[in-house]
Protein backbone atom coordinates (compact mmCIF):
# COMPACT_ATOMS: atom_id res chain seq x y z
CA UNK A 1 0.00 0.00 0.00
CA UNK A 2 2.74 2.44 0.89
CA UNK A 3 4.29 2.03 -2.55
CA UNK A 4 1.13 3.17 -4.31
CA UNK A 5 0.73 6.07 -1.95
CA UNK A 6 4.06 7.51 -2.89
CA UNK A 7 3.38 6.91 -6.56
CA UNK A 8 0.37 9.25 -6.54
CA UNK A 9 2.29 11.79 -4.56
CA UNK A 10 5.43 11.56 -6.67
CA UNK A 11 3.64 11.72 -10.00
CA UNK A 12 1.28 14.47 -8.88
CA UNK A 13 4.03 16.43 -7.23
CA UNK A 14 6.26 16.08 -10.25
CA UNK A 15 3.54 17.31 -12.63
CA UNK A 16 2.64 20.24 -10.43
CA UNK A 17 6.30 21.16 -10.02
CA UNK A 18 6.76 20.91 -13.76
CA UNK A 19 3.93 23.39 -14.34
CA UNK A 20 5.21 25.68 -11.59
CA UNK A 21 8.63 25.56 -13.17
CA UNK A 22 7.19 26.33 -16.60
CA UNK A 23 5.32 29.26 -15.15
CA UNK A 24 8.44 30.72 -13.54
CA UNK A 25 10.42 30.21 -16.72
CA UNK A 26 7.74 31.83 -18.83
CA UNK A 27 8.25 35.08 -16.95
CA UNK A 28 11.77 35.31 -18.30
CA UNK A 29 11.87 33.18 -21.38
CA UNK A 30 9.60 31.78 -24.06
CA UNK A 31 10.97 30.38 -27.33
CA UNK A 32 9.22 33.13 -29.29
CA UNK A 33 7.37 36.32 -28.50
CA UNK A 34 3.93 35.27 -27.26
CA UNK A 35 1.92 37.74 -29.33
CA UNK A 36 4.08 38.16 -32.39
CA UNK A 37 2.12 37.33 -35.54
CA UNK A 38 3.67 35.98 -38.70
CA UNK A 39 1.26 35.95 -41.61
CA UNK A 40 3.38 33.62 -43.72
CA UNK A 41 3.77 30.97 -41.00
CA UNK A 42 0.22 30.18 -40.01
CA UNK A 43 -1.12 26.87 -38.70
CA UNK A 44 2.17 25.07 -39.08
CA UNK A 45 2.24 21.48 -37.83
CA UNK A 46 4.44 20.56 -34.86
CA UNK A 47 8.13 19.99 -35.38
CA UNK A 48 10.58 22.24 -37.12
CA UNK A 49 11.24 25.73 -35.86
CA UNK A 50 8.06 25.77 -33.82
CA UNK A 51 8.01 22.73 -31.54
CA UNK A 52 4.24 22.58 -31.22
CA UNK A 53 3.42 24.40 -34.42
CA UNK A 54 1.77 27.79 -34.87
CA UNK A 55 -1.76 29.08 -34.51
CA UNK A 56 -4.02 30.92 -36.93
CA UNK A 57 -1.99 34.11 -36.54
CA UNK A 58 1.34 32.37 -36.89
CA UNK A 59 2.02 32.67 -33.17
CA UNK A 60 4.13 29.99 -31.51
CA UNK A 61 1.83 27.57 -29.69
CA UNK A 62 4.48 26.34 -27.24
CA UNK A 63 5.22 29.88 -26.11
CA UNK A 64 1.54 30.59 -25.68
CA UNK A 65 0.99 27.43 -23.68
CA UNK A 66 3.92 28.35 -21.44
CA UNK A 67 2.56 31.83 -20.91
CA UNK A 68 -0.87 30.30 -20.36
CA UNK A 69 0.37 28.65 -17.16
CA UNK A 70 0.58 32.12 -15.64
CA UNK A 71 -3.06 32.76 -16.38
CA UNK A 72 -4.12 29.33 -15.18
CA UNK A 73 -2.20 29.60 -11.92
CA UNK A 74 -3.30 33.17 -11.33
CA UNK A 75 -6.96 32.32 -11.73
CA UNK A 76 -6.62 29.00 -9.92
CA UNK A 77 -4.68 30.27 -6.92
CA UNK A 78 -6.74 33.35 -6.23
CA UNK A 79 -10.09 31.61 -6.74
CA UNK A 80 -9.14 28.72 -4.48
CA UNK A 81 -7.80 31.02 -1.78
CA UNK A 82 -10.89 33.22 -1.79
CA UNK A 83 -13.20 30.21 -1.92
CA UNK A 84 -11.24 28.54 0.86
CA UNK A 85 -11.17 31.53 3.22
CA UNK A 86 -14.86 32.24 2.71
CA UNK A 87 -15.80 28.59 2.92
CA UNK A 88 -13.77 27.95 6.05
CA UNK A 89 -15.12 30.99 7.85
CA UNK A 90 -18.73 30.22 6.96
CA UNK A 91 -18.28 26.53 7.71
CA UNK A 92 -16.58 27.23 11.03
CA UNK A 93 -19.22 29.70 12.16
CA UNK A 94 -22.12 27.48 11.21
CA UNK A 95 -20.52 24.35 12.63
CA UNK A 96 -19.44 25.92 15.90
CA UNK A 97 -22.35 28.14 16.79
CA UNK A 98 -25.19 26.23 15.19
CA UNK A 99 -28.71 27.57 15.68
CA UNK A 100 -30.28 30.18 13.44
CA UNK A 101 -26.90 31.38 12.20
CA UNK A 102 -26.18 27.91 10.90
CA UNK A 103 -29.58 27.71 9.32
CA UNK A 104 -29.12 30.97 7.46
CA UNK A 105 -25.65 30.07 6.25
CA UNK A 106 -26.80 26.63 5.18
CA UNK A 107 -29.66 28.19 3.27
CA UNK A 108 -27.29 30.53 1.44
CA UNK A 109 -25.07 27.59 0.72
CA UNK A 110 -27.99 25.58 -0.57
CA UNK A 111 -28.96 28.44 -2.87
CA UNK A 112 -25.47 28.87 -4.30
CA UNK A 113 -25.26 25.16 -4.90
CA UNK A 114 -28.52 25.23 -6.78
CA UNK A 115 -26.76 26.98 -9.63
CA UNK A 116 -24.55 24.72 -11.70
CA UNK A 117 -21.07 26.26 -11.85
CA UNK A 118 -21.29 27.21 -15.49
CA UNK A 119 -24.66 28.89 -15.06
CA UNK A 120 -23.42 30.92 -12.11
CA UNK A 121 -20.33 31.93 -14.05
CA UNK A 122 -22.43 32.85 -17.08
CA UNK A 123 -24.66 35.02 -14.92
CA UNK A 124 -21.76 36.79 -13.27
CA UNK A 125 -19.93 37.32 -16.52
CA UNK A 126 -23.10 38.63 -18.15
CA UNK A 127 -23.62 41.08 -15.30
CA UNK A 128 -20.08 42.33 -14.94
CA UNK A 129 -18.55 41.55 -18.31
CA UNK A 130 -16.05 38.93 -19.36
CA UNK A 131 -12.47 39.07 -18.18
CA UNK A 132 -9.93 37.53 -15.86
CA UNK A 133 -11.10 39.35 -12.75
CA UNK A 134 -14.75 38.37 -13.12
CA UNK A 135 -13.77 34.81 -13.95
CA UNK A 136 -11.97 34.71 -10.62
CA UNK A 137 -15.02 36.01 -8.78
CA UNK A 138 -17.30 33.48 -10.43
CA UNK A 139 -14.97 30.58 -9.71
CA UNK A 140 -14.42 31.72 -6.10
CA UNK A 141 -18.12 31.63 -5.42
CA UNK A 142 -18.49 28.18 -6.89
CA UNK A 143 -15.58 26.99 -4.74
CA UNK A 144 -17.14 28.13 -1.45
CA UNK A 145 -19.65 25.31 -0.78
CA UNK A 146 -17.07 22.53 -0.98
CA UNK A 147 -14.78 24.09 1.63
CA UNK A 148 -17.72 25.05 3.75
CA UNK A 149 -19.06 21.52 3.88
CA UNK A 150 -15.84 19.89 5.07
CA UNK A 151 -15.10 22.65 7.59
CA UNK A 152 -18.57 22.49 9.03
CA UNK A 153 -18.57 18.74 9.46
CA UNK A 154 -15.12 18.98 11.03
CA UNK A 155 -16.34 21.58 13.51
CA UNK A 156 -19.45 19.58 14.32
CA UNK A 157 -17.19 16.66 15.19
CA UNK A 158 -14.54 18.52 17.16
CA UNK A 159 -16.75 20.79 19.20
CA UNK A 160 -17.94 17.77 21.17
CA UNK A 161 -14.38 16.96 22.23
CA UNK A 162 -13.29 17.60 25.80
CA UNK A 163 -10.46 19.96 24.90
CA UNK A 164 -12.97 22.37 23.49
CA UNK A 165 -15.02 22.24 26.65
CA UNK A 166 -11.87 22.77 28.66
CA UNK A 167 -10.94 25.77 26.60
CA UNK A 168 -14.42 27.19 27.02
CA UNK A 169 -14.25 26.89 30.81
CA UNK A 170 -10.88 28.63 30.70
CA UNK A 171 -12.68 31.58 29.17
CA UNK A 172 -10.95 31.54 25.81
CA UNK A 173 -12.91 33.54 23.26
CA UNK A 174 -14.94 31.77 20.64
CA UNK A 175 -12.78 32.91 17.69
CA UNK A 176 -9.76 31.75 19.66
CA UNK A 177 -11.17 28.28 20.14
CA UNK A 178 -12.39 28.09 16.58
CA UNK A 179 -9.28 29.16 14.80
CA UNK A 180 -6.51 28.27 17.26
CA UNK A 181 -7.77 25.00 18.66
CA UNK A 182 -10.21 23.38 16.28
CA UNK A 183 -9.13 24.60 12.86
CA UNK A 184 -5.56 23.25 12.93
CA UNK A 185 -7.00 19.75 13.22
CA UNK A 186 -8.72 20.27 9.89
CA UNK A 187 -5.68 21.55 7.97
CA UNK A 188 -4.97 18.22 6.30
CA UNK A 189 -8.51 17.83 4.98
CA UNK A 190 -8.54 21.42 3.79
CA UNK A 191 -5.23 21.01 2.00
CA UNK A 192 -6.54 17.94 0.21
CA UNK A 193 -9.70 19.82 -0.75
CA UNK A 194 -7.69 22.81 -1.92
CA UNK A 195 -5.58 20.70 -4.22
CA UNK A 196 -8.65 19.00 -5.67
CA UNK A 197 -10.39 22.38 -5.85
CA UNK A 198 -7.46 23.75 -7.82
CA UNK A 199 -7.91 21.00 -10.37
CA UNK A 200 -11.62 21.78 -10.60
CA UNK A 201 -10.92 25.48 -11.01
CA UNK A 202 -8.45 24.83 -13.81
CA UNK A 203 -11.13 22.85 -15.63
CA UNK A 204 -13.76 25.49 -15.03
CA UNK A 205 -11.54 28.33 -16.21
CA UNK A 206 -10.71 26.42 -19.36
CA UNK A 207 -14.42 25.81 -19.93
CA UNK A 208 -15.34 29.46 -19.47
CA UNK A 209 -12.53 30.68 -21.67
CA UNK A 210 -13.58 28.11 -24.23
CA UNK A 211 -17.03 29.69 -24.22
CA UNK A 212 -15.24 32.99 -24.82
CA UNK A 213 -16.31 34.37 -21.45
CA UNK A 214 -13.21 33.86 -19.36
CA UNK A 215 -9.76 35.21 -20.05
CA UNK A 216 -9.72 37.62 -22.96
CA UNK A 217 -7.37 37.78 -25.93
CA UNK A 218 -4.60 38.43 -26.64
CA UNK A 219 -3.70 37.09 -23.17
CA UNK A 220 -2.98 33.42 -23.74
CA UNK A 221 -5.29 30.97 -22.02
CA UNK A 222 -5.52 27.26 -22.68
CA UNK A 223 -9.29 27.25 -22.90
CA UNK A 224 -9.31 30.23 -25.24
CA UNK A 225 -6.72 28.49 -27.41
CA UNK A 226 -9.05 25.50 -27.69
CA UNK A 227 -11.83 27.88 -28.66
CA UNK A 228 -9.71 29.27 -31.48
CA UNK A 229 -8.36 25.85 -32.42
CA UNK A 230 -11.85 24.48 -32.97
CA UNK A 231 -12.27 26.78 -35.97
CA UNK A 232 -9.32 25.04 -37.58
CA UNK A 233 -10.11 21.54 -36.37
CA UNK A 234 -9.71 19.87 -39.73
CA UNK A 235 -7.05 22.09 -41.16
CA UNK A 236 -4.75 21.87 -38.16
CA UNK A 237 -5.91 19.13 -35.78
CA UNK A 238 -2.66 19.39 -33.82
CA UNK A 239 -3.56 22.90 -32.71
CA UNK A 240 -6.44 21.54 -30.63
CA UNK A 241 -4.34 18.70 -29.20
CA UNK A 242 -1.65 20.74 -27.48
CA UNK A 243 -3.80 22.95 -25.23
CA UNK A 244 -6.12 20.02 -24.51
CA UNK A 245 -3.30 17.82 -23.29
CA UNK A 246 -1.92 20.67 -21.24
CA UNK A 247 -5.23 21.09 -19.44
CA UNK A 248 -5.49 17.34 -18.97
CA UNK A 249 -2.01 17.07 -17.46
CA UNK A 250 -2.40 20.03 -15.15
CA UNK A 251 -5.72 18.77 -13.83
CA UNK A 252 -4.28 15.28 -13.48
CA UNK A 253 -1.32 16.66 -11.57
CA UNK A 254 -3.45 18.39 -8.97
CA UNK A 255 -5.82 15.44 -8.70
CA UNK A 256 -2.94 13.06 -8.08
CA UNK A 257 -1.35 15.45 -5.62
CA UNK A 258 -4.62 15.68 -3.74
CA UNK A 259 -4.94 11.88 -3.64
CA UNK A 260 -1.33 11.53 -2.64
CA UNK A 261 -1.58 13.97 0.23
CA UNK A 262 -4.76 12.28 1.43
CA UNK A 263 -3.14 8.86 1.40
CA UNK A 264 -0.15 10.25 3.19
CA UNK A 265 -2.18 11.81 5.98
CA UNK A 266 -4.64 9.00 6.30
CA UNK A 267 -2.69 5.76 5.97
CA UNK A 268 -5.60 3.44 6.59
CA UNK A 269 -7.31 3.97 3.24
Amino acid at each position, binding site marked *: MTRKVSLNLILGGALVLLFLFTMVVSFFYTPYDVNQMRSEERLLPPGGRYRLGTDNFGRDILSRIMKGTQTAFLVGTISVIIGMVMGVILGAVSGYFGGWLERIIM*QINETIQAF*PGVLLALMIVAAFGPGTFNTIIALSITAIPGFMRITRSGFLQYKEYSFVEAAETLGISSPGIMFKHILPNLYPTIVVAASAGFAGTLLAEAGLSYLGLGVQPPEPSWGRMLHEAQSYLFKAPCYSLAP*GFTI*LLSVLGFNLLSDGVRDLLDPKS
Partner: protein
Amino acid sequence: MSYLPGKFLTFILTLWLVSLLTFAVFQVIPGNPAQIILGTEALPEQIAALEEELGLDLPLHLRYLRWIGGVFRGDLGNSLRFSQPVLELLVNSLQVTLPMAGMALIFIVFLGIPLGIVVGRYHDKKQGLILSIVTQFGTAVPSFWLGILLMLAFAQLLKHFAPGTFVPWEENWVGALFSLFPPALAVALPKVAVLSRYVSTAFVEEGGADYIRTAYAKGLREKTVLYKHLLKNILIPVTTVMGLMITDILGGSIIVEKVFALPGIGRLLVTAISFRDFPLMQAIALYLAGMVVLINLLVDLAYCFIDPRIRLR
Protein backbone atom coordinates in the same frame (compact mmCIF):
# COMPACT_ATOMS: atom_id res chain seq x y z
CA MET B 1 -37.32 19.38 13.09
CA SER B 2 -37.72 15.93 11.65
CA TYR B 3 -35.78 14.94 8.59
CA LEU B 4 -38.25 14.89 5.72
CA PRO B 5 -40.42 17.95 6.45
CA GLY B 6 -37.23 19.89 7.10
CA LYS B 7 -35.92 18.91 3.69
CA PHE B 8 -39.15 19.99 2.05
CA LEU B 9 -39.04 23.34 3.78
CA THR B 10 -35.47 23.89 2.57
CA PHE B 11 -36.59 22.88 -0.89
CA ILE B 12 -39.33 25.50 -1.04
CA LEU B 13 -37.19 28.19 0.55
CA THR B 14 -34.30 27.51 -1.83
CA LEU B 15 -36.56 27.65 -4.84
CA TRP B 16 -37.90 31.00 -3.74
CA LEU B 17 -34.41 32.38 -3.13
CA VAL B 18 -33.32 31.05 -6.49
CA SER B 19 -36.19 32.84 -8.21
CA LEU B 20 -35.32 36.05 -6.40
CA LEU B 21 -31.66 35.73 -7.24
CA THR B 22 -32.16 34.93 -10.92
CA PHE B 23 -34.49 37.88 -11.21
CA ALA B 24 -32.12 40.22 -9.39
CA VAL B 25 -28.96 39.21 -11.25
CA PHE B 26 -30.56 39.66 -14.61
CA GLN B 27 -31.79 43.11 -13.72
CA VAL B 28 -28.34 44.51 -13.06
CA ILE B 29 -26.94 43.20 -16.33
CA PRO B 30 -26.02 46.09 -18.59
CA GLY B 31 -27.63 46.22 -22.01
CA ASN B 32 -31.05 47.16 -23.24
CA PRO B 33 -33.12 44.44 -24.90
CA ALA B 34 -35.11 46.97 -26.90
CA GLN B 35 -31.92 48.37 -28.35
CA ILE B 36 -30.62 44.90 -29.20
CA ILE B 37 -33.84 43.88 -30.88
CA LEU B 38 -33.94 46.99 -33.01
CA GLY B 39 -30.23 46.92 -33.85
CA THR B 40 -27.90 49.61 -35.06
CA GLU B 41 -30.34 51.50 -37.26
CA ALA B 42 -32.90 52.18 -34.55
CA LEU B 43 -33.84 55.68 -33.60
CA PRO B 44 -34.33 56.68 -29.94
CA GLU B 45 -38.14 57.06 -30.32
CA GLN B 46 -38.45 53.52 -31.63
CA ILE B 47 -36.47 52.16 -28.71
CA ALA B 48 -38.59 54.02 -26.18
CA ALA B 49 -41.76 52.71 -27.80
CA LEU B 50 -40.54 49.13 -27.72
CA GLU B 51 -39.40 49.44 -24.10
CA GLU B 52 -42.90 50.44 -23.17
CA GLU B 53 -44.39 47.58 -25.13
CA LEU B 54 -42.10 45.08 -23.45
CA GLY B 55 -42.99 46.38 -20.01
CA LEU B 56 -39.42 47.40 -19.30
CA ASP B 57 -40.50 50.74 -17.92
CA LEU B 58 -42.29 49.27 -14.89
CA PRO B 59 -40.69 49.44 -11.44
CA LEU B 60 -38.63 46.41 -10.38
CA HIS B 61 -40.85 44.91 -7.71
CA LEU B 62 -43.86 45.04 -10.02
CA ARG B 63 -41.92 43.25 -12.69
CA TYR B 64 -40.87 40.55 -10.21
CA LEU B 65 -44.42 40.06 -8.98
CA ARG B 66 -45.71 39.98 -12.51
CA TRP B 67 -43.10 37.39 -13.47
CA ILE B 68 -43.45 35.14 -10.46
CA GLY B 69 -47.22 35.32 -10.72
CA GLY B 70 -46.94 34.19 -14.30
CA VAL B 71 -44.65 31.33 -13.30
CA PHE B 72 -47.30 30.02 -10.92
CA ARG B 73 -49.91 30.14 -13.67
CA GLY B 74 -47.52 28.33 -15.98
CA ASP B 75 -47.08 31.45 -18.09
CA LEU B 76 -43.41 32.31 -18.53
CA GLY B 77 -44.08 35.22 -20.82
CA ASN B 78 -42.83 35.89 -24.31
CA SER B 79 -39.22 35.77 -25.37
CA LEU B 80 -37.90 39.14 -26.47
CA ARG B 81 -35.43 37.69 -28.93
CA PHE B 82 -37.60 35.05 -30.56
CA SER B 83 -41.05 36.64 -30.20
CA GLN B 84 -42.32 33.21 -29.12
CA PRO B 85 -43.69 31.97 -25.79
CA VAL B 86 -40.81 31.12 -23.47
CA LEU B 87 -42.42 27.85 -22.48
CA GLU B 88 -42.49 26.67 -26.08
CA LEU B 89 -38.83 27.54 -26.56
CA LEU B 90 -37.95 25.75 -23.35
CA VAL B 91 -39.84 22.60 -24.28
CA ASN B 92 -38.37 22.72 -27.75
CA SER B 93 -34.78 22.81 -26.56
CA LEU B 94 -35.37 20.32 -23.77
CA GLN B 95 -36.20 17.79 -26.45
CA VAL B 96 -32.52 17.94 -27.22
CA THR B 97 -30.95 18.43 -23.82
CA LEU B 98 -32.93 15.98 -21.72
CA PRO B 99 -32.42 12.94 -23.96
CA MET B 100 -28.75 13.81 -24.18
CA ALA B 101 -28.45 14.08 -20.42
CA GLY B 102 -30.42 10.84 -20.05
CA MET B 103 -28.19 9.06 -22.50
CA ALA B 104 -25.10 10.34 -20.69
CA LEU B 105 -26.55 9.15 -17.40
CA ILE B 106 -27.15 5.68 -18.83
CA PHE B 107 -23.57 5.54 -20.08
CA ILE B 108 -22.28 6.66 -16.70
CA VAL B 109 -24.21 4.07 -14.73
CA PHE B 110 -23.76 1.17 -17.12
CA LEU B 111 -20.10 1.78 -17.74
CA GLY B 112 -19.02 3.36 -14.47
CA ILE B 113 -20.31 0.80 -11.98
CA PRO B 114 -19.02 -2.32 -13.77
CA LEU B 115 -15.70 -0.63 -14.43
CA GLY B 116 -15.46 0.36 -10.78
CA ILE B 117 -16.12 -3.20 -9.65
CA VAL B 118 -13.48 -4.55 -12.00
CA VAL B 119 -10.95 -2.04 -10.75
CA GLY B 120 -11.91 -2.84 -7.18
CA ARG B 121 -11.61 -6.55 -7.65
CA TYR B 122 -8.18 -6.36 -9.16
CA HIS B 123 -6.99 -3.42 -7.11
CA ASP B 124 -3.91 -5.23 -5.89
CA LYS B 125 -3.02 -6.69 -9.26
CA LYS B 126 -1.37 -5.24 -12.31
CA GLN B 127 -4.59 -5.01 -14.36
CA GLY B 128 -6.22 -3.05 -11.59
CA LEU B 129 -3.36 -0.61 -11.43
CA ILE B 130 -3.45 -0.01 -15.17
CA LEU B 131 -7.22 0.50 -15.14
CA SER B 132 -6.89 2.81 -12.19
CA ILE B 133 -4.35 4.92 -14.06
CA VAL B 134 -6.71 5.06 -17.02
CA THR B 135 -9.58 6.23 -14.86
CA GLN B 136 -7.28 8.74 -13.15
CA PHE B 137 -6.60 10.25 -16.58
CA GLY B 138 -10.28 10.03 -17.40
CA THR B 139 -11.28 12.24 -14.47
CA ALA B 140 -8.91 14.94 -15.69
CA VAL B 141 -10.16 15.17 -19.28
CA PRO B 142 -12.09 18.37 -20.01
CA SER B 143 -15.39 17.17 -21.47
CA PHE B 144 -15.47 19.90 -24.11
CA TRP B 145 -12.03 18.89 -25.37
CA LEU B 146 -13.18 15.30 -25.48
CA GLY B 147 -16.13 16.57 -27.47
CA ILE B 148 -13.84 18.29 -29.96
CA LEU B 149 -11.83 15.09 -30.36
CA LEU B 150 -14.96 12.98 -30.72
CA MET B 151 -16.28 15.35 -33.35
CA LEU B 152 -13.01 15.09 -35.23
CA ALA B 153 -13.17 11.31 -35.02
CA PHE B 154 -16.84 11.00 -35.91
CA ALA B 155 -16.79 13.42 -38.80
CA GLN B 156 -13.55 12.02 -40.17
CA LEU B 157 -14.32 8.31 -39.78
CA LEU B 158 -18.05 8.29 -40.29
CA LYS B 159 -18.55 10.68 -43.12
CA HIS B 160 -22.21 11.18 -42.38
CA PHE B 161 -22.03 12.67 -38.95
CA ALA B 162 -22.84 16.35 -39.07
CA PRO B 163 -22.75 18.29 -35.82
CA GLY B 164 -25.22 21.08 -35.39
CA THR B 165 -27.92 19.27 -37.24
CA PHE B 166 -30.46 17.84 -34.93
CA VAL B 167 -33.20 15.86 -36.65
CA PRO B 168 -36.53 16.30 -34.86
CA TRP B 169 -37.67 13.19 -33.04
CA GLU B 170 -40.91 12.66 -34.89
CA GLU B 171 -39.06 12.77 -38.20
CA ASN B 172 -36.36 10.24 -37.57
CA TRP B 173 -35.84 9.14 -33.99
CA VAL B 174 -32.88 6.94 -34.78
CA GLY B 175 -31.18 9.84 -36.48
CA ALA B 176 -31.97 12.07 -33.51
CA LEU B 177 -30.54 9.50 -31.14
CA PHE B 178 -27.49 9.21 -33.31
CA SER B 179 -26.83 12.93 -33.38
CA LEU B 180 -27.00 12.98 -29.58
CA PHE B 181 -24.66 10.04 -29.16
CA PRO B 182 -21.25 11.78 -29.46
CA PRO B 183 -22.14 14.71 -27.18
CA ALA B 184 -23.60 12.32 -24.61
CA LEU B 185 -20.39 10.33 -24.75
CA ALA B 186 -18.31 13.48 -24.28
CA VAL B 187 -20.34 14.40 -21.21
CA ALA B 188 -20.32 10.85 -19.86
CA LEU B 189 -16.78 9.56 -20.22
CA PRO B 190 -15.06 11.78 -17.62
CA LYS B 191 -17.93 11.04 -15.25
CA VAL B 192 -17.61 7.30 -15.91
CA ALA B 193 -14.06 7.58 -14.67
CA VAL B 194 -15.14 9.52 -11.58
CA LEU B 195 -17.94 7.11 -10.72
CA SER B 196 -15.77 4.06 -11.25
CA ARG B 197 -13.24 5.46 -8.79
CA TYR B 198 -15.92 5.94 -6.16
CA VAL B 199 -17.27 2.46 -6.77
CA SER B 200 -13.87 0.80 -6.63
CA THR B 201 -12.98 2.62 -3.41
CA ALA B 202 -16.29 1.63 -1.87
CA PHE B 203 -15.79 -1.91 -3.11
CA VAL B 204 -12.39 -2.18 -1.49
CA GLU B 205 -13.56 -0.53 1.73
CA GLU B 206 -16.62 -2.76 1.98
CA GLY B 207 -14.25 -5.70 1.69
CA GLY B 208 -15.44 -6.86 -1.65
CA ALA B 209 -12.91 -9.65 -1.70
CA ASP B 210 -14.15 -11.07 1.59
CA TYR B 211 -17.71 -10.93 0.39
CA ILE B 212 -16.87 -13.02 -2.57
CA ARG B 213 -14.95 -15.51 -0.48
CA THR B 214 -17.83 -15.93 1.93
CA ALA B 215 -20.28 -16.18 -0.87
CA TYR B 216 -18.28 -18.87 -2.55
CA ALA B 217 -18.11 -20.72 0.72
CA LYS B 218 -21.89 -20.55 0.87
CA GLY B 219 -21.99 -21.85 -2.67
CA LEU B 220 -23.75 -18.91 -4.23
CA ARG B 221 -23.16 -17.87 -7.78
CA GLU B 222 -20.68 -15.08 -8.14
CA LYS B 223 -22.96 -12.74 -10.00
CA THR B 224 -25.73 -12.92 -7.45
CA VAL B 225 -23.22 -12.05 -4.79
CA LEU B 226 -21.93 -9.06 -6.59
CA TYR B 227 -25.24 -7.56 -7.43
CA LYS B 228 -27.25 -8.38 -4.35
CA HIS B 229 -24.90 -8.01 -1.46
CA LEU B 230 -22.26 -5.68 -2.59
CA LEU B 231 -24.17 -3.20 -4.70
CA LYS B 232 -26.52 -2.52 -1.83
CA ASN B 233 -23.60 -1.45 0.30
CA ILE B 234 -21.99 0.79 -2.23
CA LEU B 235 -25.27 2.37 -3.17
CA ILE B 236 -25.07 5.18 -0.63
CA PRO B 237 -21.81 6.72 -1.83
CA VAL B 238 -22.96 6.12 -5.39
CA THR B 239 -26.24 7.95 -4.77
CA THR B 240 -24.38 10.93 -3.35
CA VAL B 241 -22.03 11.04 -6.30
CA MET B 242 -24.84 10.60 -8.77
CA GLY B 243 -26.70 13.55 -7.27
CA LEU B 244 -23.66 15.76 -7.70
CA MET B 245 -23.10 14.36 -11.16
CA ILE B 246 -26.55 15.15 -12.45
CA THR B 247 -25.98 18.74 -11.41
CA ASP B 248 -22.68 18.61 -13.21
CA ILE B 249 -24.24 17.14 -16.34
CA LEU B 250 -26.82 19.93 -16.38
CA GLY B 251 -24.09 22.54 -16.22
CA GLY B 252 -21.56 20.68 -18.33
CA SER B 253 -23.99 20.11 -21.16
CA ILE B 254 -24.07 23.88 -21.70
CA ILE B 255 -20.46 23.74 -22.86
CA VAL B 256 -20.70 20.44 -24.71
CA GLU B 257 -23.77 21.66 -26.59
CA LYS B 258 -21.66 24.54 -27.74
CA VAL B 259 -18.97 22.16 -29.00
CA PHE B 260 -21.46 20.17 -31.05
CA ALA B 261 -23.56 23.21 -31.92
CA LEU B 262 -26.67 21.46 -30.61
CA PRO B 263 -29.87 23.49 -30.34
CA GLY B 264 -30.34 22.64 -26.67
CA ILE B 265 -30.93 24.54 -23.48
CA GLY B 266 -27.29 25.65 -23.28
CA ARG B 267 -27.40 27.39 -26.60
CA LEU B 268 -30.74 28.91 -25.73
CA LEU B 269 -29.27 30.26 -22.50
CA VAL B 270 -26.22 31.74 -24.20
CA THR B 271 -28.43 33.36 -26.85
CA ALA B 272 -30.80 34.65 -24.18
CA ILE B 273 -27.99 36.20 -22.20
CA SER B 274 -26.35 37.84 -25.17
CA PHE B 275 -29.65 39.34 -26.30
CA ARG B 276 -30.67 40.36 -22.79
CA ASP B 277 -33.81 38.33 -23.25
CA PHE B 278 -34.90 38.64 -19.61
CA PRO B 279 -37.96 36.36 -19.62
CA LEU B 280 -36.01 33.61 -21.35
CA MET B 281 -32.90 33.96 -19.17
CA GLN B 282 -34.92 33.90 -15.99
CA ALA B 283 -36.91 30.91 -17.09
CA ILE B 284 -33.85 28.88 -18.03
CA ALA B 285 -31.93 29.81 -14.91
CA LEU B 286 -34.96 29.01 -12.79
CA TYR B 287 -35.39 25.72 -14.58
CA LEU B 288 -31.75 24.67 -14.21
CA ALA B 289 -31.50 25.69 -10.58
CA GLY B 290 -34.91 24.20 -9.87
CA MET B 291 -33.79 20.89 -11.34
CA VAL B 292 -30.72 20.88 -9.13
CA VAL B 293 -32.75 21.58 -6.02
CA LEU B 294 -35.24 18.92 -7.00
CA ILE B 295 -32.50 16.36 -7.60
CA ASN B 296 -30.95 17.14 -4.23
CA LEU B 297 -34.32 16.51 -2.66
CA LEU B 298 -34.68 13.24 -4.53
CA VAL B 299 -31.22 12.16 -3.41
CA ASP B 300 -32.21 12.85 0.18
CA LEU B 301 -35.38 10.80 -0.32
CA ALA B 302 -33.33 8.04 -1.89
CA TYR B 303 -31.14 7.88 1.23
CA CYS B 304 -34.20 7.24 3.35
CA PHE B 305 -35.25 4.54 0.98
CA ILE B 306 -31.86 2.82 0.89
CA ASP B 307 -31.07 3.22 4.55
CA PRO B 308 -33.97 4.08 6.86
CA ARG B 309 -31.55 4.87 9.68
CA ILE B 310 -30.66 8.16 8.01
CA ARG B 311 -34.11 9.48 8.75
CA LEU B 312 -33.30 9.37 12.43
CA ARG B 313 -30.04 11.28 12.18
